[in-house]
């Protein structure tokens, strides 16, 4: 093969090279086109999408928790208020070893075992990047120590937080309630209500009492700062701000002094007392004994304390006025008497002879009167004044359970009163239909007999008794109890009265009503079951005593307080209103194991009415010392 001359080769190589340069140029052009196409896609086609991504990268919404509304008593005194305090908070996701960190912190400031237990419980319930309080209400010195050692403690922060203080403590716990940290259940409820967003930035929510039932008003609206943040989440500057709207303040009908009196009169007794304004339904006092310190719950209660409260046999967490259900006993008699008159079964003057017992026709079973030997000749007034059982055994049988149920239901028995607190019990107003449904059994005549004196299946709350009593006082107006009288707008600072809620007006013959009222007044006069409790009153009182059995008494046996352990003794009941001519207060008292309405419950109601109507503060209560008459 002939080798080409180098020079010819050079020319050919040069020509080839120029060809290759063109190919190279085309190759470069292709690469450039790819880059420009990609740039076009990102910067033109997808521009809006990436702008959105960049904005959400840089802008973060920082919620600002609103100030919670205050709760004030009728005279404007603070029952629940806010204060700001420094809290030591831990973010688990940001600390290294939890135990080492806790030991380090423990060397710097004092952490009590209770705080540690509470912290561990909260930690177990929290997410990894949630901050959990280790110690609240740090002293200035503690804040300084922690600030100086901050660099050694990553994931540990000192933060200013809003807290809630309940000055009145135990006495108001069942009215005001308390706030607590938002838990998963609260969160689920908020989410379902679409209010979750409003709770960003805040850790608390009303758990019980007014704090719970007026949560939406008290909480206010969360504000937001639009912050520009860098990639590590540090705020660079505030772009815009939606200020938070503080919660609304609540003013109650309740008077703190009256509440203190009502709490004081219980002494060592447990039970519940509720006083209503019979005209408006405003709650003047609401006591459930024992109480508890609501401040314990504000920033998470430690498990030991919670256990002791929750498992105490005295059940301090139960609001007895709303949730305590007891047989109404003899307190039902004025309503039975009114039913008898209104249904035309009795006239006020109709009298029976009470031999001390009652038997149904063709039965030898004796339904005994509480008074051995009976009350003799008894008309309507005396039946109420002396609480004659036999009068009502007969009346009940004449009335029958169906009419009894229907009439008493109009007084709100067996139905929630509609008070502005959550968790109320409906109690139980027995009926033929209810028994069939509940027990799949017919109604027996004997059950009607004892229903006539408020025993048997009957269950009422003190609140229901107070509402029913108010109806006798106000002439049949079915009021709904209300704690909150008015609400203040945080911006205008103007108080706006809450509407008075009346469910319906019962039409009652004035003569019949007067007869029953006279009977209830007679209760408070010599010969009546609560006459001692009314002695020396500067105003007129209408009342009725009652007893709710705790243990059943066997046929043929007699109730003997002395032989019973205290916790098995009867509960004492008393309902009353005053002044009779122009009632301004209606009261229901239930004293657990108080035995006699006249000797324990009535003096308590008297002391409360005294203070409310005359301003006289009670001295030492000498309860139970008065002779037992019922």
């Amino acid at each position: 093969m002939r080798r080409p001359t180098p020079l010819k080769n050079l020319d050919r190589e040069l020509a080839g090279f120029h060809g290759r340069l063109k190919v190279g140029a085309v190759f470069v052009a292709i690469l450039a086109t790819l880059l420009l196409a990609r740039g076009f896609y990102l910067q033109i086609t997808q521009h809006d999408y990436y702008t959105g991504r960049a904005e959400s990268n840089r802008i973060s919404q920082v919620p600002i928790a609103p100030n919670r509304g205050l709760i004030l008593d009728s005279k404007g005194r603070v029952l629940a208020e806010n204060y700001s305090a420094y809290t030591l908070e831990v973010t688990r996701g940001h600390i290294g070893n939890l135990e080492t960190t806790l030991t380090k912190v423990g060397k710097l400031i004092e952490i009590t075992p209770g705080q540690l237990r509470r912290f561990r419980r909260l930690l177990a319930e929290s997410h990894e990047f949630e901050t959990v309080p280790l110690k609240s209400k740090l002293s200035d010195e503690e804040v300084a120590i922690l600030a100086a050692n901050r660099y050694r403690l990553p994931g540990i922060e000192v933060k200013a937080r809003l807290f809630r203080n309940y000055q009145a403590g135990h006495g108001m716990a069942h009215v005001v309630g308390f706030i607590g940290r938002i838990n998963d259940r609260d969160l689920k409820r908020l989410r379902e209500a679409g209010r979750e967003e409003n709770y960003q930035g805040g850790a608390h929510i009303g758990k019980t009492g007014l704090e719970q039932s007026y949560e939406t008003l008290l909480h206010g609206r969360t504000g937001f700062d639009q912050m520009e943040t860098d990639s590590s989440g540090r705020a660079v500057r505030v772009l815009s701000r939606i200020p938070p709207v503080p919660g609304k303040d609540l003013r109650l009908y309740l008077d703190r002094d009256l509440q203190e009196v009502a709490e004081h009169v219980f002494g060592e007794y447990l039970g519940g007392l509720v006083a209503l304004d019979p005209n408006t339904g405003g709650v003047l006092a609401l006591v459930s004994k024992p109480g508890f310190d609501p401040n314990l719950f504000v920033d998470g209660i430690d498990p030991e304390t919670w256990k002791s409260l929750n498992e105490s046999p005295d059940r301090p967490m139960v609001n007895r006025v709303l949730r305590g259900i007891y047989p109404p006993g003899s307190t039902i008699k004025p309503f039975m008497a009114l039913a008898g008159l209104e249904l035309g079964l009795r006239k006020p003057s109709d009298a029976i002879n009470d031999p001390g017992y009652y038997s149904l026709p063709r039965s030898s079973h004796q339904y005994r009167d509480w008074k051995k030997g009976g009350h003799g000749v008894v008309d309507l007034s005396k039946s109420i004044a002396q609480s004659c059982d036999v009068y009502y055994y007969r009346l009940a049988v004449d009335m029958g359970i169906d009419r009894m149920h229907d009439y008493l239901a109009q007084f709100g028995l067996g139905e929630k009163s509609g008070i502005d607190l959550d968790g109320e019990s409906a109690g139980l107003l027995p009926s033929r239909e209810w028994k069939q449904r509940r027990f799949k059994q017919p109604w027996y005549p004997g059950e009607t007999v004892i229903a006539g004196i408020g025993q048997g299946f009957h269950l009422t709350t003190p609140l229901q008794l107070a509402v029913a009593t108010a109806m006798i006082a106000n002439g049949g107006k079915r009021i709904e109890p209300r704690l909150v009288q008015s609400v203040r707008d945080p911006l205008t600072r103007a108080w706006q009265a809450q509407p008075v809620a009346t469910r319906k007006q019962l039409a009652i013959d004035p003569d019949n009503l007067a007869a029953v009222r006279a009977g209830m007044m007679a209760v408070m006069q010599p010969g009546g079951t609560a006459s001692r409790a009314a002695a020396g009153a500067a105003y007129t009182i209408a009342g009725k005593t009652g007893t709710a059995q705790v243990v059943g008494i066997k046929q043929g046996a007699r109730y003997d307080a002395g032989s019973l352990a205290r916790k098995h003794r009867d509960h004492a009941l008393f309902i009353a209103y005053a002044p009779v001519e122009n009632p301004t207060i209606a009261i229901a008292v239930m004293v657990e194991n108080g035995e006699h309405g006249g000797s324990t419950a009535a003096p308590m109601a008297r002391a409360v009415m005294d203070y409310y109507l005359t301003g006289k503060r009670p001295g030492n209560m000498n309860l139970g010392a008065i002779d037992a008459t019922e």
Partner: protein
Amino acid sequence: MPQNSHWILRRLGHLDGILLTLVVVLLGVSLAMVASASGQSPARISGHLINIGLALSVMVVMANVPPHILSKVGPPLYVAGVTLLIGVALFGEIRNGARRWLNLGFAFQPSELLKLALPLMLAWYFQRNEGGLRGKHFWVGGALLLVPFLLILRQPDLGTALMIGASGFYLLFFAGLSWKVIAGGGALAGASLPLVWILMHDYQQRRVLTLLDPTSDPLGDGYHIIQSTIAIGSGGLFGKGWMQGTQNQLDFVPERTTDFIYAVFGEEFGYVGTILLVGLYLAIVARGLVIAARAPTLFGRLMAATLSLNLFTYAFVNMGMVSGILPVVGVPLPLMSYGGTAFITLLLGVGIIMSVATHRQLNKT
């Protein structure tokens, strides 16, 4: 060309005015971008100025070295580079799981040396055999390419190996490598892709997967790509303005003075900026190819064409990576990214192109 440019060119000797202008414009843009990306850090800006000054000096010196002398440097530089690579394989320091560094009193990456040594060596070889190039010369050229390529590949440093492999391939291509071989090699490479995948290291595989779906690892490998594409895309047509890019200024774009500087540029100057930047690189390459076309020697032709194409390849790989069409490999944006070594290597290359452009007389070796 303005009057004062002529003056500068005369004083500095063998410089190509067009190329110099283009490079200086690009360096100006680079300075502005480093200033913006570093948050106007005085240390970064002055460091960058020093790098630019140093690299420009090296370029001027290089431009004044005649090509026939340059070509003689090829073989010793190549031998030294390959020796050092073997040294790395035997005694190299391991950092981040790769054996790339050699401790010569200072940490040194011999693979950087090969970026110029390999083209120089190949160009020298083909120049020597000018006029009689046959198949065997390309086999030898291929072997000269494969030795450093494989040594760097097993460090492992896939990115650098491919870039150096590309520069060698460009040179063989411009020297007239047969299309049949190119087609065959391409087919072979395509067929061996699955095998390459199997041989890839975990982190390399992950990078490729992340490219295909950055959201699969948004806080790890995908984070870079996600944030840089957000930056570029949010720039829109005209960009957010110099120093106004939020992705940049608020620290969302990582490595933004170095490998990801194009994300900052794209965010602040938009698509218009992208077109101008790509245009600038194209102009540099075009000038380099024109110089190659006019070069009197095979060595000059091959070096100018290869180095030009190589520069654009770097730009393409970097911008492709930052805009999310290529996997993340540690390749800086040429003449833009902050960094001393890369700047010097690149301007050395530009200096060589200028030397080719300005030494028109035939200097046969």
